[in-house]
């Protein structure tokens, strides 16, 4: 169903997608201020979801040897080494760690552009790929404003975090949140998580961590708010996140209008070409 808000703005995505009596919209709140970089989330995700290895090697990027979210890495812990932080950490040095994941956007570019219906909106408001439908057209990959979804080499299909759809249906929390030893990754209804996150930012500001800010928690942002949002201690781009992502389909209407005018130009141009002499 296409409603006025389908491509932008605040929305409860599961009912919008046609689910009746949908459970509350759930997601992740990843509080990077208490991430210790243990990568238990990466391991738990691989174990539970049977995600293949993503090459074994060293990248020379601090403790990050995963590199990025991709078809074979559905959680990715980023490690950023910074000189003296204004918060005055000891030795004038700080280490930022953050477990990145699919954002399960309220307005998901990957889902919007998928031509086969392989990507779908679950009753929990999350976005999942059906591996038995995906034909590997690859359109979702550049559509994602976060660079999350990716094609698996040798397989041809695209893969990403399912927010443990199978576990959710069984009444369990996702594997990464379950495994996180510091509760940096918290799972629950988004409404609760957003309230908790707002309190946490306030507490951090009160204790002098001025750089603390929420990322992806605003329903009025370019993707209608993320189903997986974050508490960051520095600018998003430092973590490899886009500072102000917008789902490309937000402007799809304007794009089609431009194409329609161009198409009309082609028709008129051709007609004009047939006026006048044949020789």
């Amino acid at each position, binding site marked *: 169903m296409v409603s006025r808000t389908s491509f932008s703005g605040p929305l409860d995505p599961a009912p919008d997608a046609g689910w009746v009596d949908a459970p509350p919209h759930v997601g992740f709140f990843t509080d990077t201020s208490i991430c210790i970089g243990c990568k238990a989330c990466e391991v738990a995700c691989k174990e539970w979801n049977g995600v293949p290895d993503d090459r074994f090697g060293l990248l020379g990027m601090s403790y990050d040897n995963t590199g990025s979210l991709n078809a074979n890495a559905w959680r990715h812990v980023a490690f950023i*080494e910074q000189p003296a932080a204004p918060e005055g950490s000891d030795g004038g040095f700080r280490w930022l760690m953050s477990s990145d994941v699919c954002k399960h956007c309220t307005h998901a570019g990957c889902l919007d552009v998928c031509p086969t219906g392989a990507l779908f909106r679950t009753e929990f408001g999350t976005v999942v790929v059906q591996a038995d439908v995906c*034909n590997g057209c690859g359109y979702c990959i550049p559509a994602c404003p976060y660079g999350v979804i990716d*094609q698996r080499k040798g397989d041809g299909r695209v893969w990403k975090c399912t927010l443990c759809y199978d576990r959710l249906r069984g009444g369990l929390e996702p594997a990464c949140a379950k495994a996180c030893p510091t509760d940096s990754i918290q799972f629950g209804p988004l409404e609760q998580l957003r309230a908790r996150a707002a309190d946490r930012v306030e507490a951090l500001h009160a204790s002098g961590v001025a750089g603390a800010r929420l990322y992806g928690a605003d329903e009025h942002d370019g993707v209608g708010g993320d189903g997986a949002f974050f508490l960051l201690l520095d600018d998003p781009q430092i973590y*490899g996140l886009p500072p102000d992502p917008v789902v490309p389909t937000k*402007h799809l209407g304007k794009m089609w209008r431009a194409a329609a005018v*161009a198409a009309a130009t082609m028709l008129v141009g051709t007609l004009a070409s047939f006026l*006048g002499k044949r020789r």
Partner: protein
Amino acid sequence: MVERAEFTSYYGRPIVKKPVWKWPVPAYFFTGGLAGGSSLLGFGGAVTGNWRLARHGRRAGFVAILASTAFLIEDLGRPERFLNMMRVFKPSSPMSMGSWTLMLYGPTAGLAVVTDILHGAAHFPARGGAKRRPWVHALARSRLLDRVSFLGEIAAGLSGIGVASYTAVLVTDTSVPVWYAARRELPFVFVGSSMAASGGLAAVVNPAADCAPARRMAVLGSALELVASDVSRRRMRAGPVDVGEVYEQGRAGRLERLSQALTVAGAVLTGVAGRRRGAAAVGGALLVGGSLAKRFAVYEAGMQSAEDPTYTVGPQQARAAGLSEPPGRARGGRPARR
């Protein structure tokens, strides 16, 4: 141009993922454009009684769409599942809309070729004096066939325009910085390129006496492509971050310059000396080459813009700042160490 501030990216890594699409996709943008424009020429030729232009336009359209289909299926990660495109009709997906447009265009373009052959069989003697089967005559001379072929060709012409133009929306509806930034102008670039290529091809395969309309179409299309590209480029240059500078760099830069040179030369030659067979053929070939190079330039520019986080972060920073702050340029990549 505002001076650029620096930002520290995550080890210089890209933020958005570049498409996994390989050469068949830009090749398809070219053949799809060639198909749409050729079908229009075919229909126009039929209506104006220019049977050579009609026949060659119809055939070029059909052959180009067969090649297009092969390219599209070839580029899938799971080619055997290409029919999954027909599971849904999804207006939010330009690729879904494109697939359905192709489903209308392919068969109607095929029909135009078949009816053209039947008409030819009915109105021209068979080779070697062999006798035609009577049912071919009956069918070819029937009014039903005329009506079906006329309606089919209208459908092929209109859906052909769709095939030539939707591919621009296909690429602008992504997070690839230089494609997204060109969302207003790229459809005009693509239809212009399509007109130039199909008019050019017609000038190559038809006698000069028959293809004045094709030459006019080619010159109009070239002008449209060049002007729309220039408008797009200027708009990006005037913005807070010049995402379009990728069209001056690396492989995209070389292809863009090649495309401009071929298109300008082809259009001038076609416009000035197109009534001479040789000049028309050379000019047409240059235009076909120019269109092909343009599609690959757009493709490569998209790839290059996705690889550099500057082009993702810069425009977003500028937007978030209401264009008041100078946008960022990625520093080497690695965060500074003590």
